């Protein structure tokens, strides 16, 4: 029995730590990628330095570049010698030096967080269109999976033709705002239709889940001793539970969800868990 217990414990301990061992092993699967990235960065930095400073590279940047370049050479040697730990250190030193150089070069410019700005360029519109197209494709694939495509196919076709039209307009330099707004409205409407359809198809499952949950919450509220909490909260919770039950009986799932969010706040005040047991 003792041997069996010992074996079980060893197996369990090994089972617990084995995933982390796998991750560590995976991190070292192809160290040559480090050299590829560092070499590419080195060349890119040389290009940038030539473009910005020509032959008059400031001393501090030259020191940084020498440090980075030496680390790349050392990285190459470390990999040849199969010294992975040293290779990792070299990689980080090289990339850190190149990072400092590139940031120094760019320091004179103002830092901008990339957000949607009013200064819309063709590049931005093209990227926005790429994102919208991906979004439409995602919605289309969900729609296909649930056989909603028949009812939405016209809308998807319209969306794709609008995307195509906008791409042509980018080339010809026409005003795009009308079509882009139309596309966004169309995509929102497709999503809303799909959401409604999903709600209908899932209503039975959600209803069953809700009813079980409300039963359990009701039980917990009943068990609360009156003196423990604010009586108003308890009374309000009971009212909302009744209201949710009524809405569920009428199959008004969305309305029930709204009332439930109100109930949840009160339950949190009372200290009742909203997790299905």
């Amino acid at each position: 029995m003792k041997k069996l217990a010992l074996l079980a414990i060893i197996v369990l301990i090994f089972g617990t730590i084995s995933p982390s061992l796998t991750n560590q092993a995976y991190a070292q699967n192809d160290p040559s990628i480090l050299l590829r990235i560092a070499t590419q960065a080195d060349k890119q930095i040389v290009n940038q330095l030539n473009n910005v400073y020509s032959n008059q590279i400031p001393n501090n940047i030259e020191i940084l570049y020498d440090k980075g370049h030496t680390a790349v050479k050392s990285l190459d040697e470390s990999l040849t010698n199969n010294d992975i730990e040293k290779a990792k250190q070299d990689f980080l030193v090289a990339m850190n030096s190149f990072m400092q150089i590139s940031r120094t070069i760019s320091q004179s410019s103002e830092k901008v967080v990339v957000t949607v700005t009013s200064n819309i360029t063709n590049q931005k519109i093209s990227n926005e269109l790429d994102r919208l197209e991906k979004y439409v494709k995602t919605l289309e694939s969900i729609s296909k999976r649930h056989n909603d495509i028949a009812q939405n196919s016209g809308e998807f076709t319209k969306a794709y033709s609008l995307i195509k039209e906008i791409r042509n307009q980018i080339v010809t330099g026409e005003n795009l705002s009308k079509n882009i707004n139309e596309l966004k409205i169309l995509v929102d409407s497709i999503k809303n239709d799909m959401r409604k359809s999903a709600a209908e198809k899932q209503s039975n499952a959600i209803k069953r889940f809700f009813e079980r949950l409300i039963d359990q919450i009701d039980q917990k509220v009943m068990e609360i001793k009156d003196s423990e909490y604010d009586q108003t909260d308890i009374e309000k919770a009971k009212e909302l539970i009744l209201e949710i039950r009524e809405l569920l009986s009428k199959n008004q799932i969305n309305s029930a969800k709204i009332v439930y969010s109100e109930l949840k706040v009160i339950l949190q005040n009372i200290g009742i868990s909203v997790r299905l047991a």
Partner: protein
Amino acid sequence: MSSLIEPIHSKNPLGDDGILFVRNDSIFDTMVKTPLLVASMIIVAALLPIQSSFSSPRDLDLIIYPDGSTHVSTEIDVDPLLTDYKVNLFGSTIDNLVVIGDSGFLLDADVIDDTALIQTFGSSVITMEYDIHDLVSKQGKLWTFSLDSPSDFTLLLPQNSAIVGMTNLPINMEIINDQNQLTLSSGKTEIDYFFSTNNITNPTVETETDYFSYVIVGGIIIVILIGTTIFVRNKQNNLNSVKYSQTSQKNNIFDLETIFKLKPDLREDDKELVKFIFNNNGEALESELRKKFLQPRTTMWRAVKRLEREGVIEIEKKDLQNLVKLRKNMEEEQ
């Protein structure tokens, strides 16, 4: 060690110093009930992964667009006993959010600042996709991607971008459609990149690629030669067996209708997969399926495994990737 332990009822007399030896064989059994210990260990071991898995993404893929916006797709394990689930997003400027439950239906989600409250209602896994504008900043010509990720993730950089600095060691790097895809570990990551006008080539990579391609071409030629020799010999020596083989192949020909008739319980999304594989000459890489159906890696992996269990497909390894093939002997198995 055990030789030093003497039972209390030992016939040996006590030593001069009067040390009392105690029988300790059963102390472990007496003080700690072994089955209880084992059961507790099993429970702890079972709960640890479950606890850590809730709320941590099991899959996180990011794509940076040339304008610095980022597409995020992630799959998260959630508690199926809760009505809703709060997800921390990576920023507050979110567009095109889509959340799908494990039944494949759209889930309702409210975005408040950098969190999304998702109405899960029993889903155990949710898939989220959204675009975000907070992860990349630009200074002059330098673009900086920063993220504090809760899990390992993949990052697809834009075309013509050249990395010039990074704070972490990458786990892996691949080239996908002329774009660098890095696999990075959890934690804080910063990556600086420029858009390169010069096409930088890496001599090391080129040498490796050339060498590798020579090996592949050589290998293919050898395989073709061996195959042709075997084929010619077989044709000359055993004409009858070839005829038999052709007949048996004819018997194995199937179409989509037959597959769906044989497997009437296939899910609609699985049927779409089968259709795609069928139209793709009966085979497709798992990565191709992911791209075609815009599915995260684990979702597609589960779908493929499901089809394999159903006996519709078989999975082979090809260049370290999963090649999914429609099975030819489905009817026989039935």
